[in-house]
């Protein structure tokens, strides 16, 4: 078993290790560092120590021949009979990584009723296709075992999967079967000087970024969420289609029914929000903002004032006595930004405020502030959206 150890003869009691630790996993006691349960083995202290006094003991050097593994493979998920957006995004990224490595890009699709024409121009070099009725509804063992056999044959160095619910299910299965590492929700992927994939992801609620390596096993598996990478499809490449025989396996799973989910209009789950505040005084004035929300697939919400005035339902109130929202993007029209309201928007990633008052409190916390008349602005934006 591995433990962190200090060579006291090299230690100069500078305390840099304690300062470098983000988790308070090491404290100086009686001049020397002592490690505790908070240590996450991130090895920042080892890197930071000016005299290299800290080492990790008991870590067995592993032997694994990575040279046999080559290529970047993308899991192609089909949604509504076409290639999903995130799969397309990953193809572009895969090509970029493969070019750095001078290797090829593969796709793998395991499904029913597959549109081969679309696959030919999706931008990969070779697509491995396993088709069959048994794959119509996703069953973990059927898809997983088939994928496993394909990976064992093709031996890709890197395997990228979109972090959809299906992707997040297939990855741990395949990772354990292949006895290899997996990293979830990567926001960035790079190749290091040894040709390894650096998988970068946020941890501890986004307060910390971690760079992860899968050094002694293959493939290096990473999941990536939608819209992290942009779609950059190379239409010139014609993909070779390789049909793969499905394994003769009876699944342990039985999918009894597929139930389409109702549209979720709960503002606490909405990714895009348009919020209206005190600047809106009459029922008729709300319409333009609802239309804007509809145009961009967002939900309408408001501050407390409009709910109390009976203009908006309580379920759409954002704030201390309403709902806490965690949208990726919020446009706040005519909202002053009282403490009451702001208490509900801590989870919003980007807040754009539009207000006629440049001194409105919200302008100090918004990512972008626009001083303008909210009615004029919203009307013009709506007009321009409808033209496109």
């Amino acid at each position, binding site marked *: *078993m*591995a*433990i962190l150890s200090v060579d006291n003869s090299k230690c100069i009691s500078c305390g840099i290790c304690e300062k470098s630790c*983000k988790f*308070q996993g090491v404290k100086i006691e009686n001049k020397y560092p002592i490690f505790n*349960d*908070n*240590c996450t*083995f*991130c*090895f*920042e202290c080892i890197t930071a120590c000016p005299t290299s006094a800290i080492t*990790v003991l008991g870590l067995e050097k592993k032997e694994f021949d990575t040279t046999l593994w080559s290529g970047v493979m993308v899991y192609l998920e089909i949604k509504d009979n076409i290639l999903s957006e995130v799969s397309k995004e990953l193809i572009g990224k895969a090509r970029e990584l493969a070019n750095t490595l001078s290797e090829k890009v593969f796709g793998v699709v395991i499904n029913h009723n597959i549109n081969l024409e679309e696959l030919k121009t999706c931008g990969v070099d070779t697509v491995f296709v396993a088709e069959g009725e048994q794959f119509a509804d996703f069953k*973990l063992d059927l898809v997983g075992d088939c994928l496993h056999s394909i990976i064992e044959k093709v031996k890709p160095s890197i395997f990228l999967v979109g972090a959809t*619910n299906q992707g*997040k*299910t297939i990855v*741990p*299965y395949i*990772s354990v079967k292949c*006895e290899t590492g*997996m990293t*979830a*929700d990567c926001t960035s992927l790079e190749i290091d000087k040894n040709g390894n994939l650096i998988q970068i992801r946020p*941890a*501890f*609620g986004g*307060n*910390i*970024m971690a*760079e*992860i*390596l899968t050094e*002694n096993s293959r493939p290096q598996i990473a999941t990536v969420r939608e*819209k992290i990478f942009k779609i950059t499809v190379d239409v010139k490449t014609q993909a070779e289609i390789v049909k793969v025989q499905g394994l003769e396996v009876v699944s*342990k799973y*039985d*999918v*009894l029914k*597929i*139930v389409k*989910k109702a549209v979720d209009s709960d503002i606490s789950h909405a990714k*895009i929000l348009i919020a209206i505040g005190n600047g809106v005084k009459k029922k008729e004035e709300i319409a333009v903002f609802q239309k*804007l929300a509809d145009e*961009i*697939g967002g939900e309408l919400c408001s501050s407390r004032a409009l709910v109390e005035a009976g203009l908006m339902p309580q379920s759409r109130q954002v704030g201390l006595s309403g709902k806490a929202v965690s949208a*990726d*993007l919020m*446009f706040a029209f005519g909202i002053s930004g009282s403490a009451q309201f702001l208490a509900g928007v801590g989870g919003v990633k980007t807040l754009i405020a*539009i207000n006629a008052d440049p001194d409105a409190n919200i*302008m100090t916390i918004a*990512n*972008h*502030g*626009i001083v*303008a008349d909210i009615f004029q*602005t919203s009307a013009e934006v709506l007009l*321009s*959206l409808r033209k*496109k």
Partner: protein
Amino acid sequence: MKIAVCVKQVPSDNKSLMDKKSGTLIRNGETSVINPYDLFAVEMALRIRERVGGEVFAFTMGAGSAKKVLIDSVAMGVDGGYLVSDLAFAGADVFATAKTLSEAITFVGGFDLVICGRQTTDGDTGEVAIALATHMNICGLPFVNEVVEIDEKNITASCDFGKHNAITKCPLPAVISVDKDCGLPRIPSLRGKLSAKKAVFPVISLDDLFDKNNNNYGLSGSKTSVLRIYNTVFETSNNIIKEGGLEFLKGKFESVKKGDL
């Protein structure tokens, strides 16, 4: 029915966690709690026990302080718990964590169902449940938002795959991971809270496990390693757009409409 619930101790509130000046995690007082997602797993286990009878045991991997989450689970009504703890287990990634839990649960033995929370608020990978099922070579149902039916042989659950729910049936034993949609976790009763303090939890260490090779656990048994850790730089550009605000806004709306956030 014998049910295992996997629970984890995590830092409490992510936002106030970071000391802005030093960039380190603040740990003082009450800053370690049971992973909020695991409360839903415990609740699901208790509801299933109410439905079909049986016993529920909590498992947690960690140092001695992790006992607290076992106490919290017992306070909610769980029948007992196990502390999976050994120096050899420290520094484990998802692969090694799932391996350790699978060995521990198998060691205690006799479980029909294993329930995990969807993810943790610290590591956040959301992959342990299916990795655990795969290590144990049993079925795994992910993103469960409802247990439709359960008996001694099979479980039927609604699995959330984004735009649809797949009502899936599989044989027991199985692992399921549950999300926040399946019922608000109960607040411990007074009797539960009082008696939980006296609960005793057996410790499962490396020597108890079938696979005693310590290279298969902890840091040594992990397939991934950390290269670097650094503080996220938060974009706090509170800039007021003086010129061209309308154009900026139009542009923003247009890209969002196209699907580009």
